[in-house]
């Protein structure tokens, strides 16, 4: 069976946190539990300060088993306001990744 995962083009993540709340709603997670998180990353070059966001899955990500069984996208993928998360097989995602710099693949399961 093909292994599925998430390709996240992190360069587009604006830090809006929609993925986190989408995940919490989908799984009805209590405080402290969430399947995806976003951190702010600040870097300082001599002439410029850069602000980026880094989304990553956690141990609680189940790739929305219930949703994907019925053909729906995972909750974070659907609601990402920057549309920077793709769900698919790791093989497909790896191919996509070649064309999409500044991205990462997560295989939570």
């Amino acid at each position: 069976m093909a292994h599925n995962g998430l390709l996240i083009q992190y360069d587009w993540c604006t830090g809006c946190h929609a993925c986190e709340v989408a995940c919490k709603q989908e799984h009805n997670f209590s405080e402290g539990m969430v399947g995806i998180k976003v951190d702010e990353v600040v870097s300082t070059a001599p002439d410029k300060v850069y602000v980026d966001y880094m989304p990553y899955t956690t141990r609680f990500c189940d790739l929305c088993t219930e949703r994907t069984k019925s053909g729906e996208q995972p909750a974070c993928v659907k609601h990402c306001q920057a549309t920077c998360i793709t769900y698919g097989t790791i093989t497909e995602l790896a191919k996509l990744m070649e064309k999409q710099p500044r991205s990462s693949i997560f295989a939570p399961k």
Partner: protein
Amino acid sequence: MAKSKENIVLSTLWSAGCGSHGGCGCEIYVQDGKVTRVEGDKNHPFNQGRLCAKGLAISQYMYHPDRVLYPLKRVGERGEGKWQRITWDEAYDTIEKKLKDIRTKYGAESVIFCQGTGRDIGGPITFLMYAYGSPNWVQVGLAGHACYTPRLGAMFATQGQYSVADCSQFLEKRYDSPEWTPPKYIIMWAQNPAAGCHDGFYGHWIIDCMKRGSKLITIDPRATWFTTRSEVHLQNRPGTDGAIALGMLNVIINEGIYDKAFVEKWCYGFDELKERVQEYTPEKVEKISWVPADLIRKAARLYAKNKPSAIQWGEPVDAMPAGSVVAQAINHLWAITGNIDNPGGNVIARNSHGVTTYPFSSAELTKLYGADLVKKLNEKRIGANDYPMIKNFRGWVQPDVLINQLETGKPYPVKGAWIQTSNILGGQAADPRRHYNAMKKLDFIVYVDLFQNPTSMALADIFLPAATICEKESFRSWWQPLGVSVKAVNGVGEAKSDWDINLELAKRLATTPIKYNTVRELIDDRLKDGNTNFEKLKAKGCWEYPPEGHNTRPYYRYEKGLLRTDSKPGFETPSGKVELFSKRYEEWGLDPLPYYEEPKESPTASPDLAKKYPLILTTGRRSPVFFHSEHRMIPWLRELDPFPMCEINDKTAATLGIDNGDWVYIENTRGKVKMKAKVTPTSHPQVVTAPHGWWLPETDGKEPNLFSTWEYNINNLTSMGNQAKSGFGGTDYRSSLCRVHKIEGGKE
């Protein structure tokens, strides 16, 4: 018992729940009469399936244990927090009697009708207010009307219509529309679009455009995700945006890179504007704004030479020392470059199908309620006679004049308040203590909301529980598309929609009979202008764009005679052109040309004060998970933004002995407020940035604590009475002076 199958109800979000200005299409999942979750609607062109954190948390908001579910009456003193559940009948009877008594004794004008900015509130509150006979519609404490109104007023004066950055939102096929093209550059002027849907503009449309090639120029005192990705970042001193706009106009005009054909044919007063901007050289503007002259030139050239380009602007523009003047100068930038009602420019924005749901202007009020009534009521509207721009443009009270009148009772006393969707003391009011003292003296206050908050706790005599968006029927035509909100479940507890509440009371209080029996009749009557009705729109998936050729659809309507009431080509202004020299401003006793005004409190304007308070305080930083003062009790959201957090530059913090995460006091001549310090190089060394609307719902709501509003609400450091000459804009929300020091033993 087996659970019944989940139902999906399509609707439009524009009310309590997410709370925001939105317009997102949503799927409401319902099981056994309860909302189980809310998701985005993939088929809705506004959000295309996406949804923000606030929208996704709606079910937690709806079924929160602290939500007020029944009408309440106060049984102790104001602020004691003693409430008794009553029936709707008792609530309506009490309100009817009290408001009628006040009207008989003092006149209808002595009751003010107070709203905030959330929910679909403009329609219901004006409907009730005009039925009762009061002219006093107001956002209490919103100093200088500093939220969108100055920008709207400036655009109305300059070009007769409003404009917004064109991200294809006026076309149903959106980014695939053949007539649309992405802006080559987008100037992000004083806004963080990732944090929400300000002014009905879905923030992530900017991201969508970036993916289609749009480049950014950003004007922001902070470093942000957007400045990181901008070709030019103008990191300015807060409060100086007007100077930057004038400096850019100077460059574009003097270098001859404006759209000469458009200016020649469609603009009025170019020579006067050219003369005016001569004094604002980039070098002079650099001294005012901290932005290097060469960067101002670069930004101006990139914007002017790359057509189409668009400007997307935020609320700080309104809160500049002369908000309506700053907005005018920015409007001139898109005017002289011909970026008006063109694809990928600043498209003319009109309410879809000509339907009015939220009457922004006096003209729309007149259309809904008749010229005679509006004219008669204008005579007594608070502040209207002091400010011609307010009298002639927007049917609102001037809030800085109101606070004086509340205190002095002159020219007539204010006796009652109807407050709906507005946490005045914990939210928008500058100097909330002053408003607390003044409003506490009122004879009768009704409060309509969903949760107790500092304002309801301090002031309410009757609390009416309002419904969330999933529990109500409503309609929306804030720009595009025209939409309806569908009731997915009955009101939780006994909650009722703002429309239901206000229609019932309007029937009881009206001096002439109300023609609607039900809210549905009212909605269908308003939708008649769009040649449709509630059921038709619902059947279409809750939204519709106007037909081809309709005057609420782009582009180039000024060429086609679609903007003026007389159907002639041109703009709906006295000269029929875009007025760079504004005849309307002149008629209203204002300078017809833009100019720069320094903030009252700044290192330049008040150097002595700056010695004691050396940092510039700018407030109102948006959080992507809260809408203004809402949502602090929603666990999914609060977990993501748990503390009131001010941003302070790392080097500055080091000199003050402040570490990341320390609790600090931000202090100025008006008081001090407690926040956690986020120590970060993204902050300018001389600027402290603070969020607004913080109170702690988990703490004691009773007086004197009032949910800790006096400790954490940054508006305790702002003040009233700084309004600009127009009455619009000009206050210290965005630029004042402060100092910051660590609270000893304050690290958690």
